[in-house]
């Protein structure tokens, strides 16, 4: 069961080898057993068993069922779920119960998925360690003294610990790929505009994208057929219909050109990581891919650009949490006082820091020097990718500059924390797709991640390459020993 694929689960369910109720119970048991240690869930859906039992009844009667009927999934707690609390890992939305469903939530329900619960995250997706959550500090299943990465740390840890077969997260600057790498699971950031953002609580609207965590690439392709659709409710959603994510998984990458940007392999990258990437590339070469050196000269500005654009957008996106309409409200002598107290005590330190940074960058007199300049440099970074993809099909890099670090190690040093995302941020600024796949372990038995980057709407190519690598290795099948007991 630990490495069972979605299509196998579907088969078991339709063959009545296992009932939906049994499946939910299996994962409930794992959650009850292991999550007190891992702390990946913020809330559980209390009606999951009922939903499963309804599906079983229908199946018994021979009713038509949607393709994924009974498959459990869990969502990062900033994907809106009707009648299930959606907190964004923040005190300010602690008791917020949405009256509507995100488009992806609706797609999942329509496809028959059972939402098991909501997963922990850095507050409003701001962080790379899951430590800024108001609720819990999620642990890395490979070493519970270490972080799972972030911001989608709960989503990555839950899949790595096999508390759920798959989950959704969101990626603004690496928030799917980095925790994917640190927890040793597959994490895909789809092309901007591929998955609807309607009902994804915004951090930085021009960068945010929902994506899946899975234990293998086939599952990633399969879930993309459900969530990767055009949506009229999102003006930035691309009018490109489903790719054949599944049927394009041939594993044949003969002649595929993979670019190696030297800017991503500086002196500071530790040897273990560097070597694991080179080993991975050798495997790809064996599969028929061609490795090409490329230049991405503006890479070094990406983090600076990101922290201006993302914080500027966030400062505006988070303005609505003001204590007036919903969520947490603190007392105040007057309106202004209420605003100040609500925001001061409702938001955590990192969120407040970024709101202040962003407000500053947009302020009159600073706008040109910060926001406008950052937009111009963003264009240069985009152009780096555009010219690279004229030469190569995909780009290979490390996902994260380090493996999982210890809790508290970087929390007090925001700049150190921000540098976790140096390899993932440029892709968000460009808007293409990227994936992190397990490519080994370091000496401490902590997972290493290989990042593959693709052009706009090149998910099929990206997934196929990841699939080819996965078929040639078994890193993705590893589960921490202490979690093996079913």
């Amino acid at each position: 069961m630990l490495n069972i694929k979605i299509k196998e689960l579907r088969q078991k369910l339709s063959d009545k080898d296992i009932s939906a109720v049994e499946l939910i119970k299996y994962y409930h048991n794992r959650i009850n057993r292991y999550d007190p240690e891992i702390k990946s869930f913020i809330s559980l859906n209390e009606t999951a068993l009922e939903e499963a039992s309804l599906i079983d009844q229908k199946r018994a009667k021979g009713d038509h069922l949607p393709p994924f009927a009974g498959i459990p999934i869990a969502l990062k707690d900033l994907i809106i779920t009707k009648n299930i609390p959606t907190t964004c890992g923040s005190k300010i939305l602690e008791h917020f119960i949405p009256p509507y469903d995100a488009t992806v939530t609706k797609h999942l329900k329509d496809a028959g998925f059972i939402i098991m619960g909501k997963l922990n995250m850095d507050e409003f997706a701001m962080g790379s360690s899951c430590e800024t959550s108001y609720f819990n500090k999620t642990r890395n299943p490979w070493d519970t003294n270490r972080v799972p990465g972030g911001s989608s740390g709960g989503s990555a840890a839950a899949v790595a610990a096999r508390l759920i077969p798959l989950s959704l997260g969101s990626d603004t600057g690496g928030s799917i790929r980095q925790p994917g790498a640190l927890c040793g699971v597959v994490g895909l950031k789809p092309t901007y505009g591929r998955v609807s953002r309607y009902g994804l609580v915004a951090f930085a609207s021009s960068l945010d994208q929902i994506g899946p965590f899975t234990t293998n690439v086939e599952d990633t392709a399969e879930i993309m057929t459900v969530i990767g659709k055009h949506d009229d409710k999102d003006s930035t959603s691309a009018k490109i219909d489903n790719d054949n994510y599944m049927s394009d998984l041939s594993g044949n990458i003969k002649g595929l050109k993979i670019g190696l940007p030297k800017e991503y392999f500086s002196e500071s990258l530790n040897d273990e990581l560097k070597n694991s990437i080179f080993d991975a590339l050798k495997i790809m070469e064996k599969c028929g891919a061609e490795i090409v050196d490329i230049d991405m000269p503006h890479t070094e500005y990406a983090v600076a650009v990101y922290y201006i654009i993302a914080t500027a957008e966030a400062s505006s996106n988070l303005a609505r949490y003001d204590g007036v309409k919903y969520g947490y409200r603190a007392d105040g002598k007057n309106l202004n006082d209420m605003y100040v107290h609500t925001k001061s005590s409702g938001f955590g330190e990192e969120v407040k820091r970024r709101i202040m940074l962003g407000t500053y960058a947009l302020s009159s007199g600073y706008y040109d020097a910060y926001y406008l300049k950052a937009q111009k440099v963003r264009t240069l970074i985009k152009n780096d990718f555009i010219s690279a993809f004229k030469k190569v099909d995909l780009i290979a890099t490390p996902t994260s500059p380090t493996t999982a670090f210890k809790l508290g190690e970087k929390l007090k040093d925001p700049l150190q924390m921000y540098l976790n995302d140096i390899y993932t941020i440029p892709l968000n600024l460009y808007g293409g797709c990227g994936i992190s796949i397990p490519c080994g372990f370091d000496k401490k038995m902590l997972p290493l991640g290989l990042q593959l980057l693709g052009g706009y709407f090149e998910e099929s190519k990206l997934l196929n390459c990841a699939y080819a690598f996965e078929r040639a290795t078994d890193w993705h099948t590893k589960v921490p020993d202490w979690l093996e007991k079913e």
Partner: protein
Amino acid sequence: MEYEAVIGLEVHAQLATKTKIFCSCPTKFGADANTQTCPVCIGMPGVLPVLNKNVVINTLKAGLALNSEVQVRSIFARKNYFYPDLPKGYQISQYELPIFLGGYIDIESEGEKKKIRLTRIHMEEDAGKSIHGANLNDPASSYVDLNRTGVPLMEIVSEPDMNSSDEAKAYLSKLKTILQYLKVSDCNMEEGSLRCDANISIRSKGEKTLGVKTEVKNMNSFKNVGKALDYEIERQIKCVGRGERIVQETRLWDTEKNITLSMRSKEEAHDYRYFPDPDLVPIVIDKAWIEEIKNSLPELPDAKKERFITKYSLPIYDSEVLTASKEYADFFEETFTYINSPKSISNWIMSEVLRIVNEKGCSIYKAGISPEQLADIIKLIKNGKISGKIGKQLFQEILGSDKKVEEIIKEKGLIQISDSSELEQIISDVIQKHPLEVERYRNGEKKLTGFLVGQVMKATKGKANPKMVNQLISKCLG
């Protein structure tokens, strides 16, 4: 020293679309508080705006009619500020790259023609309504109604080209007429579908540079615009007269006290931190679309006025009155399809129909008489079937009734008596009853004809054909 006022207006017109600008909630005025809302317009976490195409179409119509230059690519921006009736904490508006730049409106004030230039036209969403006051459940609290949140607005910004409150009123009135002609806005100032802020400064006559301006808000009727501008101009002149300097600030018009009051100074002005809204894509307008809209534009007030003068040979004054509203002009032209007497129609509309419209404050089509009914009355008078006086009586009788004019005439017995034998009988009765006057008439006092005709009219309750009565009296007594 003689001073000159310099005025620029910022007009917000609510666009007459069925649904809001970024969601599908209705825009109907007057619904119960917070019943016309959804997750999008109340700013729930995670929601996204989707632009209503009809908002763009209406704005395109207005901009093209106002001679403004459409921008092939324009973008929405976020205007950030905190207020409880602004649920997202920002208003989606256009800042850099609005949909229209430039343009002008021709106005006429005190007989002088003038071109008022426009700076820009842009689209934005309205905020909600804050309600404070004692007649609510808890007088100490404020309440917010978000029905208006996300209602589409078009902002039309003029250059500082006006020099008096009369010019400002003429501009506003012309703008209102054009927007109503285009049916893009109701322009109802009392319901808030047309709002106006003014930038006002003064300078010595002949001076070219602009003085320090104040911005006056909260003028919610045409009358208030005139009063507020006159007050503010006078205030500034007095201020300078005392040797003080004008402070750049925003002032509110107080409709109770009839004065403007300082609201906030330039230093206290908001920093709105405008930036392009990443949730919306640029609005790209191609040439074909512009042509399509251009071809769909109706005849505009000035062109219509000219046509009324030439086609119907109406006096300038009549043409102006009739084209001041598209409905008046339509009513006139519809009546004309039943009877070819433009001047009579014009007279009847201007005197009788518009009197009712003004009394009731209603649309001309709700005044209670249809163009066909009006045409029938005019026809009867023209054919000598009824007198003008009976015509007016008939008009009153017909108000609010669906009946044909003929029916009412029959019911009320209003048809003119033109039967000479019938009239001769009545005349002989009158002659018998007034032997003295008849005697005097026969002795040469011919002016007594009027008295005798009057008696006949009285006896017939005005229904006798006065021309025939005249002739018959002369014949009988001659």
